[in-house]
């Protein structure tokens, strides 16, 4: 049995690395994909192009404009006086935000009467618009509180009565990814996706190809058992997949500063369980396809929903209620939760055992089903 297994493994490695394009797809492409996706799928929003429309032209209005862009979320692209000019810049797309400081800003400020400062936001990119609204609202609110406190303390100093006002302030503190860098969140997702695609498609196509070429029949007249054949076909890609996971983690932590807070043992164990699911699915797809073409199509039929429902791009909590139960059937979901939990939060087996259990259940079921189907199709 070991002789036969070794023969299959050696043959699979030879075939995989004989074709330079396949070797490239297996080893180099994941890193390239992650680098591109890591930079491109950057959900952080800062340096939003902003036009300051200062109709007041006083030192106070200039001061407000400067403070608005000081923090970095907004980047000043122009300062204009005419509101029509500001609208034009928004329409052209040169600016995405316009801060409209009205005439009489300094006068009303001195008179201590409420001032309406308008912020115009380009809503074509909802994510950026959301960030711009929150940031500008927060900026103006903080500035208003600052002014009030200043006035109050002046009044107190003059009158000598109250020294401070009781206030309630909300101070959010973001854990694990304090700067909310999206790359840190994305990298585990990319690693999962790459592993999923490689192992599922390559396995499904590899078996379909043997059937297409007729080599499957030739193998079946040797004493080589179907289970040994499958094991030998899966093992090389499991090893390549694990090498990929390691490489992706290294690149992720070097390029994007992804922390590795948890144990690598958790990463390795969950990767192996996940590989059970993907290789099993690959074999299953091969048992329902007659050609390599059908295997590719079948692969994508599985991959697209698996990736989308796994919570790679969009949080599962944001999905419609009727879709959410489906995500429990998706091994990607569990592996992603384990990887993010382990890498970003340092979670261990004690925190993640539910996900491990689900992943193991899925993997063992699909693998058993596939091996049985594969054997029946031969018989």
């Amino acid at each position: 049995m070991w002789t036969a297994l070794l023969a299959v493994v050696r043959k699979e490695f030879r075939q995989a690395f004989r074709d330079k394009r396949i070797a490239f797809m297996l080893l180099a492409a994941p890193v390239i994909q992650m680098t591109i996706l890591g930079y491109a799928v950057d959900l952080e929003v800062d340096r939003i192009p902003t036009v300051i429309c200062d109709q007041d032209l006083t030192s106070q209005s200039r001061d407000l404009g400067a403070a608005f862009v000081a923090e970095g979320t907004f980047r000043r692209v122009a300062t204009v006086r005419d509101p029509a000019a500001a609208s034009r810049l928004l329409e052209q797309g040169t600016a995405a935000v316009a801060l409209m400081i009205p005439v009489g800003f300094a006068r009303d400020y001195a008179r201590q009467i409420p001032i309406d400062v308008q912020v115009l936001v380009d809503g074509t990119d909802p994510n950026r618009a959301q960030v711009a609204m929150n940031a500008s609202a927060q900026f103006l609110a903080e500035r208003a509180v600052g002014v009030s406190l200043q006035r109050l303390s002046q009044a107190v100093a003059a009158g000598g009565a109250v020294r401070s006002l009781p206030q309630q302030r909300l101070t959010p503190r973001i854990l694990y990814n304090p700067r909310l860098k999206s790359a840190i969140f994305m990298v585990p997702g990319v690693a999962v996706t790459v592993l999923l695609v490689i192992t599922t498609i390559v396995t499904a196509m590899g078996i379909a190809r043997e059937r297409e070429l007729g080599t499957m029949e030739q193998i079946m007249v040797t004493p080589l058992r179907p289970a040994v054949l499958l094991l030998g076909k899966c093992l090389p890609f499991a090893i390549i997949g694990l090498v990929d996971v390691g490489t992706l983690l290294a690149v992720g932590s070097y390029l994007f500063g992804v922390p590795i807070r948890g144990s690598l043992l958790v990463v390795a164990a969950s990767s192996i369980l996940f590989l059970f699911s993907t290789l099993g699915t690959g074999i299953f797809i091969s048992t329902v396809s007659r050609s390599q073409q059908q295997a590719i199509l079948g692969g994508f039929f599985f991959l697209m929903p698996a990736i989308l429902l796994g919570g790679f791009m969009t949080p599962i909590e944001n999905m419609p209620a009727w879709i959410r139960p489906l995500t429990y059937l998706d091994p990607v979901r569990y592996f992603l939760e384990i990887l993010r939990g382990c890498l970003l939060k340092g979670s261990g087996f004690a925190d993640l055992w539910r996900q491990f259990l689900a992943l193991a259940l899925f993997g063992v079921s699909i693998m058993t089903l596939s091996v049985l189907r594969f054997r029946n199709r031969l018989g």
Partner: protein
Amino acid sequence: MSGPTGAGPVIEVRDLTKRFGAFTAVDRVGFEVHAGEILGYLGANGAGKSTTIRMLCGLLAPTAGTALVAGVDVSRHPQKVKRLIGYMSQRFSLYLDLSAAENLDFFGGAQGLAGRRLRARSQAVLEQVGLLAHRDTRTGDLPGGWRQRLALACAILHEPHLLFLDEPTAGVDPVSRRSFWQLVRGLVRAGTTVLVTTHYMDEAEYCDRVGLMVDGRLAALDTPAALKARLVPGRLFDVHGPAAGSRGRLAAIAGIQHVEPFGAGFHVRMADPSVGAGDLAGRLDAAGFPGAVIDDLEPSLEEVFLEVVEGWPAPANAPEVPA
């Protein structure tokens, strides 16, 4: 790796039947193959030749009947049979992206060969089929006839005493076919028993015995000479020349049993084996066909095959055999 020793048949098939749904691909077939024999299997496409071989190799489970291959019951121990036989299928099932030696590595490993023994056997079979110089050539770059020899090398790597060849020479040029058959005959001389299916009548002449399959039934099985004597009795002549005549008018001549158009002339069979070419010339003359050129002809298996197929009742069910 025990071979068939002593007397008795190497393959014993009784009432072997395979049904795919309502279609009977192989219908109560029975025969024996003796050690050191080449048994040829002739038949039209879909006649059940490949299905029979696939059952004997343990690839397909029989619906009914028994098949003992080297003493092993195929339906009970298909896995055991696989150790004892070599099999080469219609398409040369090799990995085209691997070299000749790498293909041998894999199929040898699948048969349980490893290490020094595998290396020695690879070397030996490559030499046997004349591909030693091309051991590191990518199989896809080898010409068709060479690939087929490599496929044979893969099938005999584990030294089986029994070799199943399913249309091994389909689509191969005549020169390569000839050299392939020389290899097969060499193996038989060394003691291997061969069961081969083919479409080529000239190849069937190489066989010790020939079985004819029609619609899933084994219609005839005997040595080529005996088949000819029994199924194509009388004497055969080739009639051609300026006044060879028409088929219908020739057939009307007394003593002529059968007329088959062949090339520019006809193959004419006389019922009485004692009738010579001179007698036939006289009868043709008398019937108004002077000057026809008449040659004595050895009947070929093609005549046997056509005779059997034409004499066979119309098929009750004859869809294609599922692949």
